[in-house]
C-alpha cells in the first residue's frame, strides 16, 4: 500500500500536492491533535462555559449533556424545559463521546477511557481510567491512520495524542 501524507498548506507553498485532491469536505469525522500540557488527565467540574462548537448530545433526566469539541461536556439542568439552567462544565481534554450508566459518566479522555461518578456534581470522582484504550499515538501525524486530520501547528507545542472529532475543511489527510 502506498502511503503518503499531503498537507495542502505545504502543497500551496510547493505547489506539489502528490495527488490532485477531490473536493475537500466541509465537515468530516477525523482526528485533531492534543497538545502537550501536563494536566490533560485533570478532570474537573468548572463553572458553565460559553458554547463554541458543540458535538454530541446526551440526555439523562433531568440533565442534558453536550460535548464541546475536545474540551469537555456542558451540563444543563432541564428540570424545567422552558428554562434550562447551565449547571456546570465538565472539563475532559480530548473528549468527543459519552454515555452514562448508574450515575457513572463514561468518556474518552485523549487516548484513555474514563468513568466519572457524577452522582454529586459538586464532588465528582474519577472511578475508572483505562489507559491507551484508543490507539492514536502522538506525533506530527496520527500513526496507522488513514483519513483526514487537523494539521499540526508547531506553535502550539508538542502533540501528545489525537482525538476523534468532527473537523471542518481539513487540510491534512493520509491515504
Amino acid at each position, binding site marked *: 500500500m502506498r502511503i503518503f501524507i499531503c498537507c495542502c498548506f505545504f502543497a500551496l507553498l510547493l505547489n506539489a500536492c502528490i495527488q490532485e485532491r477531490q473536493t475537500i469536505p466541509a465537515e468530516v469525522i477525523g482526528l485533531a491533535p492534543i497538545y502537550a500540557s501536563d494536566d490533560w488527565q485533570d478532570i474537573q467540574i468548572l463553572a458553565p462555559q460559553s458554547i463554541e462548537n458543540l458535538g454530541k448530545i446526551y440526555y439523562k433526566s433531568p440533565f442534558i449533556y453536550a460535548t464541546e469539541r475536545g474540551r469537555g461536556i456542558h451540563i*444543563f439542568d432541564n428540570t424545567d424545559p422552558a428554562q434550562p439552567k447551565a449547571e456546570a462544565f465538565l472539563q475532559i481534554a480530548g473528549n468527543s463521546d459519552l454515555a452514562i450508566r448508574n450515575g457513572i459518566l463514561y468518556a474518552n479522555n485523549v487516548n484513555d477511557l474514563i468513568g466519572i461518578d457524577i452522582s454529586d456534581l459538586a464532588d465528582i470522582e474519577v472511578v475508572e481510567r483505562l489507559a491507551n484504550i484508543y490507539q492514536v499515538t502522538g506525533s506530527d501525524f496520527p500513526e496507522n491512520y488513514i483519513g483526514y486530520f487537523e494539521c499540526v501547528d508547531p506553535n502550539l507545542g508538542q502533540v501528545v495524542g489525537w482525538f476523534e472529532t468532527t473537523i471542518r475543511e481539513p487540510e491534512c489527510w493520509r491515504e
Partner: protein
Amino acid sequence: MKYLGAIFLCFAFLACSNDSAATLNSSSSTGQGGSLARFTVVGDYLYTLEVTTLKWFKAEENGGLTPQGEISLNEGQETIFPLDNLLFLGSTSGMSIYEISSTGEPVFRSQIDHVVGCDPVVANDEFAFVTLRIQSCAGLFRPLATEDVLNIYNVQDIQNPNPVASYPMNDPRGVGLAGDVLFLCEGANGLKVLDISDVNDVSTISQLTNIHANDVIVLNDKLLVIGPEKIIQYDYSDPANLVLISEINL
C-alpha cells in the same frame, strides 16, 4: 418423584433463561444519546466505536470497566445505535447489524453496502433509516456518489436487510424516530419532520428552515435538537407544528 424432577428442571431452566435475559435488560439506569453517538450502554455493557474498531466493556457495580473484547471493522465507522439487543453501526460504506449475546458480545448478523457517504442510522423493529450525506462529506477513498439521500431498509430479518426506498435529502445528518414520525436534521438547512407510516410514500409533514440542526434526541414529550451553537427544545405533540419550548445558547 419423576414429576418433581421435571418441575425442578423446568424451574432451573426458567431461572437460567431469566438470568441471561437479565444480563441485557438489567435494572441499570442509562441515558439516551443522539444518532451520531459512538458510545452506548446496553444493559451492563458499554460499547465504544472507533473508525475501525468496536470495543466493549463490562460496567461493574463500582463503576469500573472490564475490557471484554474488540472487533475489527471496515474503515469509516461513524455511529452506533442500540435497539433492544441489537447494535446498528453506520459507516461510510454501509450499515451493519450486530446482535448482543447474553455475555455482551456483539455477534455479526449482516451488512448492507451503499455508496460512500456519512451516515447515521436509527431503526425500529421493522425498518432502519439511514441518512447519506454526500455533498459535504468525504470523498476520500472512493468517488463521490451523486445525491444526498434518506435510505430505508427492511430489517425484520436481521440476517438479510433489504433496501425498501430512497428519498433525496439536502445535507442530511442526525435522525430520530417517534412512532410514525422521523425527525431528520439537515445542518444549516434546518429540520424536516417526515411521515414514515408508509415507507414507500414518505412525505414531509413540516419543516424548520431557520435553525441549524446536526442531531436530535427524541424524548416522550419533547425533541432536543443540537446545532453547533445551541440546543433547542420543541414540543412535537403536533408534528405539523413544532412548538418552541426553549433555546440554550451560552
